[in-house]
């Protein structure tokens, strides 16, 4: 193979030795590099979004939700919670009353919204969804001074405290210490029995819940489980159990086991579970589809780069036809000739892949790293090599000695690297006004090493295939005709 490497490496360089590698090789290498770098970057962003969302979901959401068909209430819930917590895959379980209620703030006389109410036992809920870490305010539903204060100021019966989703509170126009009225049910008018009156319950806003998960921040209110039970007259009963698992990814299997483990009587009804994956299935499948589409598109980009390699090689074969004839005369076999051109294509492909992988990973790192960068103005260091290059171009007589050329090349490299370092920064979703859609503050980046390897293997295969035809063409040149080729 040494002979083939010797010839191929010489062909990769330019004939007059003015530039280290001929322009056409550089263009081909650049094509592959760009393709590989883009795919690594795009996949890293998609991956980052997926992981960011997942982390967020897993941080403040139950992994499995257990309820009965028809959302019926059931008793003995503490026993059942204990049963679930007894399972080795489970970290914690929390009994919850989940319902919807129409509300109006105290300054309004019409119903403003229908919100979800989660009646919780704060300690148990904390273990499952990390509830209190997202609350700005008190989670003492029963004894918060705000409750007594509100009752005293308004001279009204206050049922309890509520923690309200932050965005919901903004929408309703109420703040901490304000009262939110629930329409619990309708009762007959004490005198005129043909009329119905709403039965109201007053809750004082104790704090705001801000998890950056739009669903909760926009639609949920949290009250104490006892208050919820009283509200619905369901003493010692709940309608849902939220469960946190050790391995979130195993949710489906564990959910099935939970259904088996927790005993319900026939009268109570059939249990059913929902996993976090099922809840967010449309989102995750959309992300997966996006990834597949991206990989396909990127494969096409690399295919274009491979065509570039193929045409480079075909041109080389045409240019070197006479040389092929000479080499055959000297006793090189078809296999030798084929190897020479395949090595040439392979080297272009490998250099492109290495360069692309490095560039892709460096860009990912720059986009993800929050270190403070110098101002964009520092990017003007590029002016130095540009000026030098112009001077050299204008004074053609100035011959480029090896060391000078190397120095200039190094200057370019440092200049470009530094410019990239200055200019490529994390992309702020807040500034773009997208933070509430993606529920993240900056464009998330997570390099998937599996994909990095995958895309390299794929690119290598594509490039290798691209070399086959030109190499075969070169190998099958007839020696005599090749020698006479002009």
């Amino acid at each position, binding site marked *: 193979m040494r*002979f083939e490497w010797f010839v191929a490496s010489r062909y990769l360089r330019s004939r007059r030795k003015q530039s280290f590698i001929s322009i056409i090789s550089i263009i081909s290498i650049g094509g592959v590099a760009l393709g590989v770098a883009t795919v690594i970057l795009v996949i890293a962003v998609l991956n980052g979004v997926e992981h960011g969302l997942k982390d967020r979901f897993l941080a403040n959401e139950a992994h499995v939700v257990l309820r009965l068909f028809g959302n019926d209430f059931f008793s003995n819930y503490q026993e059942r919670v204990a049963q679930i917590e007894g399972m080795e895959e489970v970290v914690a379980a929390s009994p919850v009353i989940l319902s919807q209620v129409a509300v109006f703030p105290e300054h309004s006389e019409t119903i403003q919204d229908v919100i979800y109410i989660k009646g919780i036992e704060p300690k148990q809920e904390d273990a499952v969804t990390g509830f209190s870490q997202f609350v700005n305010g008190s989670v003492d539903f029963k004894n918060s001074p705000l409750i007594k204060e509100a009752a005293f100021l308004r001279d009204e019966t206050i049922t309890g405290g509520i923690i309200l989703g932050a965005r919901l509170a903004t929408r309703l126009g109420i703040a901490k210490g304000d009262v939110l009225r629930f329409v619990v049910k309708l009762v007959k008018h004490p005198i005129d029995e043909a009329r119905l009156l709403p039965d109201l319950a007053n809750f004082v806003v104790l704090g705001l819940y801000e998890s950056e998960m739009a669903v909760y921040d926009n639609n949920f209110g949290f009250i104490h489980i006892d208050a919820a039970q009283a509200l619905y007259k369901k003493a010692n009963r709940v309608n849902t159990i939220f469960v946190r698992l050790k391995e979130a990814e195993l949710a489906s299997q564990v959910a099935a086991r939970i259904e088996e483990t927790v005993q319900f009587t026939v009268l109570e009804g059939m249990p059913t579970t929902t996993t976090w994956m099922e809840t967010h299935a449309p989102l995750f499948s959309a992300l997966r589809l996006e990834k597949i589409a991206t990989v396909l598109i990127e494969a096409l980009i690399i295919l274009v780069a491979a065509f570039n390699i193929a045409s480079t090689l075909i041109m080389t074969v045409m240019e070197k036809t006479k*040389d092929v004839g000479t*080499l055959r005369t*000297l*006793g090189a076999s078809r296999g*030798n000739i084929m190897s020479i051109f395949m090595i040439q294509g392979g080297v272009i492909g490998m250099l492109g892949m290495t360069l692309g992988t490095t560039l892709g990973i460096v860009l990912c790192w720059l986009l993800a790293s929050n270190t403070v960068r110098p101002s964009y103005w520092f990017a003007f260091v590029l002016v130095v090599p540009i000026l030098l290059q112009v001077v050299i171009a204008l004074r053609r007589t100035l011959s480029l000695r090896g060391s000078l050329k190397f120095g200039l090349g190094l200057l370019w490299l440092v200049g470009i690297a530094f410019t990239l370092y200055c200019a490529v920064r994390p992309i702020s979703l807040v500034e773009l006004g997208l933070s509430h859609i993606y529920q993240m503050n900056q464009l998330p980046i997570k390099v998937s090493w599996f994909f990095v390897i995958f895309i390299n293997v794929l690119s290598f295969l594509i490039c290798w295939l691209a070399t086959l035809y030109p190499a075969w063409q070169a190998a099958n040149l007839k020696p005599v005709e090749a020698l006479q080729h002009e």
Partner: protein
Amino acid sequence: MTKNALIRIVDLQKSYYDGETELPVLQGVNLEVYASEVLAVVGASGVGKSTLLHIIGTLDRPTAGRVFYEEHNVFDLPDRDVARFRNERIGFVFQFHHLLPEFTALENVAMGALITSPNSGAVYEKARELLDYVQLSERLEHYPSQLSGGERQRVAIARALINQPKVVLADEPTGNLDRRSSDSVLELLWNLNVKSGQTFIIVTHNQELAQRADRVVHLVDGKVV
């Protein structure tokens, strides 16, 4: 003949095809070439001298007939072995030098041996000796474009000799050179023949060269007369 033929050519035919039309070039060439002789092949242009040389050199396959090297029919061998055979046994010198432009004189000379030899150090040493022999020891690192016509042809001769082939095939080796270069190249060829006893088959128009050869064959109408 008492001597055993090094190369025996039996009823060699070669035709080129232009669409349906057959253009016969060689029409039954019979020829024996003996070890250590200088054989000149002369004939009018287009009579098939070069074609004959290419077939003897295994660069082309005959339409019919056989070429025996020491009683082995080379065209029975698979392509890979033919290449190997050509590499080890045959040296070529063409009218045009056919040096590889990307490689130095030294590398061009070494090329033929680098194909098979794992020991490049020894190969370059040998190449250096050969270039010294053709009086180009000052030109080792020069590229073909930096050499004169005569120098290029001398490099080409050195290249043909790197694997010590039994047969050197030369196709109008001086056809493209001026008088002085031509003389020095011819002198070199003869010295080689005397020194190393290699067999030379030289296709030429050059009368002087033909007269100096041990034997001259005339190719007329695709046959040896």
